[in-house]
């Protein structure tokens, strides 16, 4: 079966972003960008399915600015077979992204789409669920274990109560949680090989997808700062302060 996996270019997880003083957004100039950590896990899972001979082909898709091709190359170096890059200038909401992904799915006809559970920039946690709805496919969100059993998929999900397992008939959509796997590093020979793998370039128009905006960002601002930084000398002093100053114990 074919597997489609999606990746997003985001600010590196270790970077502490700065909010622009005019409230128009966060300052991403000269900031290190990387593949969204959850997308790395998605790519790794797809490549493992291929290594287990469950998947015949792994296609990686990204919708983003021209530099997103770097993240597609990274996925190719991890073991994906070919890429699809939908170039867009502006950041699009999950509703539009999932509509565009639907068009890609209808064209490529994968049996499984694997996405990260959320992007660490917008923290939306929506795209996989929306895509599943648009395709009328079942969804296995926050997956920590995925097992293909014939035409079915057993997905163990990380939920607030603990873990739960669903069985989905393929085709299906899966979104990854952190504990699904540990992504591999691309080796230099694989990075070199990835340069020869094809990346198809598309625009939103090719996918019959119009950007629509039900949401309007009015402003981006800094969260209130905490007045931290006070230190105490001993456990006894800590308890005394918690009891008499903060009055929380």
């Amino acid at each position, binding site marked *: 079966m074919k597997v489609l996996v999606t990746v997003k270019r985001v600010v590196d997880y270790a970077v502490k972003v700065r909010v622009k003083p005019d409230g128009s957004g966060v300052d991403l100039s000269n900031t290190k960008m990387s593949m969204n950590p959850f997308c790395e896990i998605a790519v790794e899972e797809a490549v493992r399915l291929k290594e287990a001979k469950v998947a015949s082909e792994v296609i990686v898709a990204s919708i983003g600015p021209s530099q997103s091709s770097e993240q597609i190359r990274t996925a190719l170096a991890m073991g994906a077979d070919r890429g699809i890059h939908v170039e867009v200038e502006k950041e699009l909401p999950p509703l539009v992204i999932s509509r565009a992904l639907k068009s890609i799915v209808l064209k490529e006809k994968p049996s499984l789409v694997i996405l990260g559970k959320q992007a660490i920039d917008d*923290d939306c946690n929506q795209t996989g669920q*929306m895509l599943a*709805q648009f395709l009328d496919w079942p*969804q296995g969100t926050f997956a920590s274990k995925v097992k293909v059993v014939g035409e079915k998929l057993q997905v163990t999900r990380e939920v607030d109560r603990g873990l739960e397992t669903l069985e989905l008939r393929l085709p299906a959509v899966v979104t990854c949680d952190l504990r699904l796997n540990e992504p591999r590093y691309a080796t230099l020979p694989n990075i070199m090989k990835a340069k020869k793998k094809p990346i198809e370039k598309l625009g939103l128009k090719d996918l019959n997808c119009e950007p629509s905006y039900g949401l309007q960002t009015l402003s981006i601002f800094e969260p209130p700062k905490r007045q931290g930084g006070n230190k105490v000398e001993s456990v006894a002093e800590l*308890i005394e302060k918690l009891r008499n100053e903060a009055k929380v114990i």
Partner: protein
Amino acid sequence: MASLVIAEIDPSSSQLQGSSLAAITATSQITSKIGSQENDIHLLIAGYSSDSEAVNKAKEIPQVSKIYVVPPNETSEKLFKYGVAEWLAPCIQQLHEKYKFSHIVAGASTFGKNVMPRVAAGLQVSQVSDVTGVEASDVFIRPIYAGNALSKVKCTDPVKVLTVRSTAFEKAVLKEAQQLPVEELSFTPDTNASKCVSWLSEEVSQSERPDLTSARVVISGGRGLKNAENFKILEALADKLGAAIGASRAAVDAGFCPNEMQVGQTGKAVAPELYIAVGISGAIQHLAGMKDSKVIVAINKDPDAPIFQVADYGLVADLFEAVPEMTKLLDQNAKTAVHS
């Protein structure tokens, strides 16, 4: 127009989850800003019958003015009780098509996060995730970039589909049960997706401790605890303070404790009165889940750990000495209190 809140019921206790009670408070803040007469809050309880304990309990929520129930049958019982999105989302969509709600709201728990984007896509509208503030009936605040920035968004869709962060809103307080209209819906989804999913099993961690997201005191351990066995030293302290125990991602990944204890951007968001971080450096992703706590205490032997920048009280010490000492001192104080 009324607003609809999607109830999340704990399947083992039949109690309404705290996330739903917070969602009701958020919804009442929204409806109070609409200013029209029709700003009722309706509640959907799927998978339970009209005379169930869950429904009777929901009648004690003063803000609610009508309840919809989808009584369970053999096929649907587990699918609704465990919030399987392929069943619940078309059910919510159908209810909306009948009554045209202004807002459809759920708590931003794994239940809400799983089902609400599917609802929004079915209605061809956007969804606003993890709302922490209500500015107007169509303007909401939500954190982005692991809480390092806040975004004010205006939603122009005809129906606003939202999940709300439960620690950002007080939980609705239950009062005396009211006489409420309860409408029964019979519903079996007619979608491909709903036919393609079955619920198999769950593993629930048993704990005597308070629920992490609603505990008054939370003690969290990180990589500094070194192993699962050492996590026990937090338990003695947690017992003294009636606290829930949380963990950093490092501690979960290292197998010290199960993942549902993870506090952070990708785990649970908590905002207790007292948060004690033990052996946690304070990475951006961890801070995202706890920096709205009222008082933060950090115990760490590294004086440069970033956690100290947000801690109201920081103690630079070896946690293996400091935590047992804290437990012991609290013990002695308790005894003194009893004697005097």
